[in-house]
């Protein structure tokens, strides 16, 4: 126990150090490569991109803290985007938002129930949900693209308050709320306990099953909400929306230093991870590297980030 506590700071230090170094190196490199990089316009683009990725990765962070995983978030984001787009394009913004968030909640609740009450491994349950949600989005859209949303709705993704993009404000708000929830509430502390030692958490009287369902539900709702922000930003939705975002979200969580074994990490790390990934994507765009390479970069980053953390932890032992 004491050894574990003493070991923690070194691990946290390692994560903070490597990520800060990576972030700094990236900024310096991009500033040298492109004179356009440090302009206000580009910073707005980077921050908005980071905020979009964070919306999706924030819920996932909570799931990963419990030692679980949610592979369905990309598809749930897509389903939310499709349902939302359908209603919003036909004039009812409120209905669209409700349908999207409702779908996200339903998917999340099913995920949570399968994991907590049925006892299916998280990556199987949520991987199945990936195909169910993707299929339903596909059924709803029938291969079509819905575009052209009312200006009021588009503010959600493309608007500004002063010089700050609305998604950045939303992302910052969610970051603060989740950070407070994680560190100051019983629910938040319980997530770390479940991830650290699920049996001990249960024996100490925590309603672990109920909390697990809540976490997956939250992940689903946040993913669907991210879907609304995405379609408000790009002004269009199709059944493929969000498909490529799963790997990015997982990369953001891993880069943020949240342990895939559960019990350690947090949303602040994920926010920094999202920022790094947004810079990587931005840099690739500025160097006109084909978008096909982005999944490659995400795959390599996921593997390297986890590899670094796991190796460091081993060396400490």
């Amino acid at each position: 126990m004491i050894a574990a506590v003493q070991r923690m700071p070194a691990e946290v230090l390692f994560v903070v150090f490597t990520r800060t170094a990576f972030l700094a190196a990236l900024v310096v490199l991009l500033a040298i490569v492109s004179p356009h990089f440090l302009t206000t316009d580009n910073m707005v683009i980077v921050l908005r991109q980071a905020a979009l990725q964070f919306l999706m990765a924030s819920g996932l962070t909570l799931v990963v803290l419990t030692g679980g995983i949610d592979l369905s978030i990309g598809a749930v984001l897509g389903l939310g985007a499709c349902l939302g787009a359908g209603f919003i394009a036909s004039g009812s913004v409120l209905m669209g938002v409700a349908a999207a968030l409702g779908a996200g909640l339903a998917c999340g609740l099913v995920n949570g129930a399968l994991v907590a009450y049925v006892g299916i491994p998280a990556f199987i349950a949520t991987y199945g949900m990936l195909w169910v949600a993707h299929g339903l989005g596909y059924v709803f859209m029938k291969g079509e693209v819905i575009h052209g949303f009312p200006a009021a709705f588009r503010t959600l993704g493309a608007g500004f308050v002063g010089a700050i993009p609305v998604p950045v404000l939303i992302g910052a708000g969610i970051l603060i709320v989740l950070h407070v929830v994680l560190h100051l509430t019983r629910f938040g502390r319980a997530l770390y306990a479940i991830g650290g030692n699920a049996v001990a958490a249960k024996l100490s009287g925590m309603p672990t099953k109920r909390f697990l369902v809540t976490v997956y539900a939250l992940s689903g709702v946040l993913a669907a909400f991210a879907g609304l922000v995405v379609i408000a930003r790009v002004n269009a939705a199709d059944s493929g929306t969000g498909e490529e975002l799963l790997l990015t979200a997982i990369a953001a969580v891993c880069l943020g230093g949240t342990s895939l074994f559960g019990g350690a990490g947090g949303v602040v790390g994920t926010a920094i991870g999202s920022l790094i990934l947004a810079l990587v994507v931005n840099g690739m765009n500025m160097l006109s590297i084909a978008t096909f390479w982005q999944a490659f970069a995400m795959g390599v980053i996921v593997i390297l980030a986890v590899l670094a953390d796991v190796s460091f932890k081993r060396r400490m032992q």
Partner: protein
Amino acid sequence: MTAAARALRAPFARVPELPGAAFLLALLAAGFALAHPEFLSARNLSNIALQCAALIIVSLGMTLVILTEGIDLSAGAVLGLCGVVMGLLLASHGSLPVAIGAAVLIGVVAGCCNGALVAYAGMPPFIVTLGVYGIAQSLAMVLTQGNSVTGLPPAVRWFNEGDLAGVPVPILAMVALFALTWVLLYRTRFGRYVFAIGGNRRALELAGVRVRAWLVAVYAFAGLLAALASFIMTARMNAAHPTIAIGLEFDAIAAVILGGTSFEKGNGGIWGTLVGALAVAVLRNGLNLVGLSTEWQVAVVGLVIVSAVALDALRNRA
């Protein structure tokens, strides 16, 4: 039991106590047979056999990986990359052996990467294979610019349409690879270690077995099978497409779990997987036959499989 009877029984001694897949298969077969007269026709049955050959081949590798308490989410993307590389080499007038060699090499290398990161670095299998999935998928898209590779020489179609002594090549390949995997799993040290790694890895390590190296071999074998399956799929489409097998890993994982192989304690085996893959293939074929649109198929297949896995989990807990 007499010696003769025992010898006769031996190959079936590993048939597990009917997994959930057997009930699902019976239910689906009965349902579709009633719903559509065509379902039980010889033509449709041979269609199902041809369609599930690639799935069974990939599922065999997946079974071994899952027996070691792992998972391979990269199988579909790696299969796609192998097909694309073979297609590109053939389309630019490379010889067939070179193209086949290159595809096999890529499958094995991808598998070794998965295995090494899982075994030596101690990373969770689903994150490793998800990363490799991204990398393989991206490379396949970059190589083809997202398009199909067409203009393959007619020789390629042998992998799907050819036959030896009247047996179609995909069926033959499937049977041969099943037999190979059966021998590896039940008659060699490799197979015993596969079960033991899932059962009690620590004990195996303490017994002086080089567990890490064997684990790499398991993932490499899965990569090899994905490469071999890519020949059949490419031949069937007569073109190589980078996303041809995206989602195939889901069918394979479903086949394995429905077949009674569990993620814990190294329980299960390839007979169950065979039944599981047949159930998945019958489900897809039947839905096509009764005219369910492809949009609905994705959702229904996901739903049926998740429900079946959930029921199985509940049944095993009871």
